[in-house]
């Protein structure tokens, strides 16, 4: 399975040795979107009927270590209008994406599932529309909003109008007229 290419230790080794390369690495062989992800990471319930079972294979994000992928994810997040509903993570039409408590899970496989399948209360289903590698890049970006990616690979918060909210709340504008 392509997504099992990176073991945890390989990841850490890569992180140690290639930290400076993270921003540049990217996959040149994109895969088409799959419609389902299985494995422990996609579980959305802590209830395990009949006691625990043998751990199932975990699907990790093959694109989760690269600054290039995260910044691509940020660009795509705007391009596919995720930002139109979720804004810069604070939410609006859709729920916030900067948070600790996810409705449908915050693991990479959950996020992948959410984007591909959609969710019943208004999250569009993007399966077949966004290529799989781009979905993983968006997943990496969404994770980075929550500090769930190596900081060395994480871009700064989006460059919008004013970066310091302190300057904005309750500011009284100059009356030009």
């Amino acid at each position: 399975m392509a997504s099992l290419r990176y073991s945890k230790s390989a990841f850490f080794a890569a992180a140690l040795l290639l930290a400076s390369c993270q921003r540049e690495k990217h996959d040149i062989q994109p895969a088409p979107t799959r419609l389902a992800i299985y494995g422990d990471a996609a579980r959305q319930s802590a209830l395990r009927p009949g006691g625990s079972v043998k751990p199932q294979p975990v699907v990790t994000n093959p694109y989760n270590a690269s600054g290039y992928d995260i910044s691509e994810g940020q660009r795509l997040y705007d391009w596919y209008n995720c930002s139109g509903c979720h804004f810069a993570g604070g939410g609006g039409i859709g729920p916030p994406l900067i948070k600790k408590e996810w409705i449908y899970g915050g693991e990479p496989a959950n996020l992948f599932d959410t984007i591909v399948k959609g969710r019943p209360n208004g999250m569009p289903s993007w399966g077949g529309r966004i290529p799989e590698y781009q979905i993983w890049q968006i997943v990496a970006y969404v994770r980075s909003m929550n500090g769930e990616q190596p900081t060395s690979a994480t871009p700064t918060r989006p460059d919008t109008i004013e970066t310091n909210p302190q300057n904005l709340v309750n500011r009284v504008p100059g009356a030009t007229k």
Partner: protein
Amino acid sequence: MDRIRLTHICLGLFVVLPAFAQIQNQPDDGQWVMPAKNYASTRYSTLAEINASNVRNLRTAFTFSLGTTRGAEAAPLVVNNTMYIVTPFPNNLYALDLTKPGAPVKWVYEPHTNASSQGVACCDVVNRGAAYYNGKIYYNLLDVETVAVDANTGKLIWRTKLGDINNGESITMAPIVAKGKVLVGNSGGEFGVRGWLAGLDADTGKIAWRAYSAGPDKDVLIGPNFKPFYKMDQGTDLGVRTWPPDAWKIGGASAWSWISYDPQLDLFYYGTSNPGPWNPEQRPGDNKWSSTLFARRPDTGEAIWAYQMNPHDLHDYDGVNENVLLDLTVNGQSRKLLAHPDRNGFLYLMDRQTGEIVSAEKFGFTNTSESVDLKTGALRLNTQKQTGFHTVRDACPAPPGVKDWQPSSYSPKTGLLYIPHNNLCYESQGTNANYIAGTPYVGMKVRMYAGPGGNRGVFGAWDPVHAKYVWSINEMFPVWSGALSTAGDIVFYGTMDGWFKAVDAHDGKPLWQFKVGSGIIGQPVAYKGPDGKEYIAILSGVGGWSGAVVSGGLNGVDGTGALGFLNAMSDLGKYTTKGGMLYVFSLP
């Protein structure tokens, strides 16, 4: 002071026009059959049992949980001793039996509205209420449908699908029924929809006509009888020619809000929304007929006149706010008027026969434009505040305008228009909006904040004849509820931090307030109960565009959330929690 002067005016009118019934003096049977109370949209009740001297004794008569946690913007209706309430999504319709103690549920109609429609509601999954007509309750579903339900039994009579959520369409407005036509418009100005208003046969639900807001004249139902007052609104196919090629097909201009009707002139009035995308650099031209007031015939939908308040809108100034129909004497002339407090900050008093502006004065802090030229109809813009890809700061009012959907009330007794509204400014930066059907088409990063004075809301009493405030009350949050005035010389409104208030209609003096469970963004109504007593009803349940921070559990670290409203409202959660509930009050 104003009481004396205004009484004079009223007396004067009666002397001058003895044979005329002024449109604002509507007969009142103590029921509440449409959200705006009557076709003139006065939201005025002639009931006077509850009045300025006893309102302080008001107490809760009964309550009812809506079972929802999103913004409750609807007006309860009262017909034949039954109260009807439409909830936010999933748009259940409850009938409460007012003849029994505690007003138990008589029936509930559950339409099973498509849950995916919640993703195309720009500003919380609200519904503004139903309309009663000839034994049926009519209302709209978020998933672009209209239903007619038997008012006695709760049985569905017809259900008509009017659009497609996959084009970004939804419906949040309350229909009105005029001359046997149910008038319904779509929402979706932030989703690149093609805006329309349709007339449905009240008996069958069949679509009799559909008037698009943009496109060729034949689609807009513009024909030989179309006579706009101002030159800027005259010409053929302006709904195509004032846009870049094909941009009108995804140009917004939805019709998501109030409709008034003058049976004598046989004209109905409504406004269209902002054009899409918000970023004006992507749509050079006037973008007709966005941000426009239309007068049309209910039989055919044919347009009679139009006036575009905000050509080439720069700030999301939808033209959808209510039009209160008034017959008044202005400058010594008695005229058939409509009062339209626009998002852009001007209160337009217009001749509702012709579309001529009689006056247009600022009713809140505005620096995006200077004035309205009464000769040409043109809005004189402040060039410093024009938006686009560049950053613009301290533009006022913010996109929700000096006033958004929250409907005002006119008391024929005081001659004042009671206006709940906002005091917000903002900064913006355009981005390149990418049109993907069914997703937002906005192209603007926005952050809003309180306007001058720091109060985000105002409730004010406006004298339409002299075009000025008589009194006003500052509120911490935008006043996102409707207003109700009564012959008891009192005015009701609610605040987003959960206070339901009664103030003196003449001077705004606070007379009574009651803390409800969740912030108020609903529409207060008054009715006469089966026991002959007067009751006041209001939905509590914070939400809507302004309250999405609480109802949608948004994260305030991102001020651009909720189209930039999040920045101005991130403290709302300290004052209120979510949850929909009906409150009904009466005297002991």
